[in-house]
């Protein structure tokens, strides 16, 4: 790994150069009183001091609506692989962790070439958190900092960034940063200090157990009053699914053109909290009650998905669902802590 330092002015020039390059550049920007990932028009618009974005960068990696196939009359199908080169600028460590999880889920077992192709065309420039958001609890989940997945990692050390280029793609980008100098020991110290601080600071909600304990905790609590207590207020609105960086369930639909023969098969985000998520023909719903669906989400985060990805918990502590839930019931920490309280740990 090559580690260097650039001043903030020089970094701005780097971003300008990136924007001028032939890649699409998406970065964090302010929209009204919040932040979002969006196409970057100028370096000035980039806000690496943001707290959290409304939607996670998932919207670029697994888009809300993505064509899979094009079809024509006579059952003839052509795969659609979208993947124009893109730089994602300003991904926080917890979001990086969620991308790492999705990378594993979409490549293991059956290899999803649509996801992987798009992913391979994306260069991720991550950045350590400067401003903790009001609901972040990444520290509890072990995702306040992240070691892998990014092509480049930036750490704000005041008047400069420490830049770690982790991959060939990342190193290639440093060519656009001619003024960068090798990071000094002092810079590296500052960088480590920021990261250590974040491991304490990004903890607005404190999970009262180690994340690795969650699968076990859940195993014992399928029947527990908290599910009904919380879900009573659930609108089944799926906001918690939509904003979550680790939710990746999708629906598949066909859309035809006016010739009624040709068209597109696409996938689109779905959410396990939505009423019809598990409904099959004949209106049989395998998770009919709000509490069934509410529980399913927290099990999926804390037990099921971890079972598929070597125990990694599929909640990275971004806190987005806490903010998004109108009924104020979606907070995973709150639920897990309640389970802790009423479970004999043994």
């Amino acid at each position, binding site marked *: 790994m090559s580690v260097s330092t650039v001043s903030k002015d020089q970094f701005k020039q780097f971003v300008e150069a990136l924007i001028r390059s032939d890649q699409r550049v998406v970065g964090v920007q302010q929209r009204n009183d919040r932040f979002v990932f969006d196409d970057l028009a100028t370096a000035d618009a980039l806000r690496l001091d943001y707290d959290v974005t409304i939607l996670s960068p998932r919207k670029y990696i697994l888009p809300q609506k993505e064509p899979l196939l094009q079809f024509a009359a006579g059952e003839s199908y052509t795969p659609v692989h979208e993947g124009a080169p893109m730089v994602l600028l300003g991904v926080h460590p917890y979001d990086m962790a969620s991308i790492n999880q999705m990378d594993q889920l979409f490549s293991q077992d059956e290899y999803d070439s649509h996801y992987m192709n798009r992913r391979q065309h994306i260069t991720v420039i991550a950045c350590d958190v400067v401003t903790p958001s009001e609901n972040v609890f990444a520290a509890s989940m072990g995702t306040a900092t992240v070691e892998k997945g990014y092509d480049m990692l930036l750490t704000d050390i005041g008047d400069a960034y420490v830049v770690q280029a982790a991959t060939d793609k990342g190193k290639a980008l440093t060519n656009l940063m001619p003024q960068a100098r090798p990071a000094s020991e002092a810079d590296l110290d500052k960088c480590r200090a920021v990261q250590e601080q974040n491991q304490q600071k990004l903890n607005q909600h404190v999970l009262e157990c180690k994340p690795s304990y969650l699968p076990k905790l859940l195993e014992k609590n399928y029947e527990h009053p908290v599910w009904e207590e919380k879900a009573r*207020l659930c609108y089944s609105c799926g906001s918690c699914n939509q904003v979550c960086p680790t939710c990746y369930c999708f629906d598949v639909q066909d859309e035809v053109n006016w010739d009624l023969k040709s068209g597109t098969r696409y996938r689109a985000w779905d959410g396990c909290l939505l009423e019809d998520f598990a409904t099959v023909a004949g209106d049989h719903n395998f998770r009919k009650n709000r509490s069934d669906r509410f529980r399913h989400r927290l099990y999926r985060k804390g037990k099921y998905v971890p079972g598929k990805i070597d125990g990694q918990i599929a909640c990275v502590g971004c806190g987005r669902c806490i903010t998004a839930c109108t009924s104020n019931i979606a907070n995973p920490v709150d639920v897990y802590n309640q389970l802790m309280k009423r479970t004999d740990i043994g």
Partner: protein
Amino acid sequence: MSKPRVAIFDFACCEGCQLQIVNIEEEIIDLVGAVDVVEWREAMSEQSHEYDIAIIEGSITRPEDEHRVQIIRTRAKILIALGACATIGGVNKMKNNFDLNEVKRCVYGQDAGMPHLATTTTRAVHEVVDVDYKIHGCPIEGEEFKRIIRDLLLGKTPFVPNYPVCVECKERENVCRYEYNEICLGPIIRAGCGAPCPTAQWRCFGCRGLVDNPNVDAAQEVMEQYNLTLDDLKQKMVLFNSK
């Protein structure tokens, strides 16, 4: 196979939903290529009693309209309710919150008794005749209209969301109105519109009607969390979702 014949009829409404059909712009040409529009008073002079698909816009508010829509039902193989006035009664149903005679007096004064001003309780189309499909919204969403028509032509049951507007609102990366302690009907209203109202930084007005199974029991407690009351919510529901 001959092209299906489509007739478009309007009852009490603003005709804005028909306008959305015109507003599919260039694709109107594709539409008239795929179906035979045999009657559409707002756009053409032909009239016909022979049609396969009847599209009904507007609410039923007068005895003679009830009769007319019943005749249309007997002639049509498929009957589609188009837009909030037809699917849920829409703004027209606000009238039902008042005494009918009083409403008439309010609007027509001493002339209220004139026979051509007769009016009855406003009803959505399915409250009068069987409706096969509903295209929701005030006004309808052009993209959804096109998709539903193509699906029907293909013999497919059109997909109509049974999840709340919040799904699409989040998809558009809006900040929830409740975060500003403002009311929004999104959590209980059927999606499909793409959430234009919250995207314009206003509330969901509820024009697509309730989802199949809205959590109305949660409302009171949730309103209290935001220093709002159930009455505030009801005030907003009345606009498009009066009884």
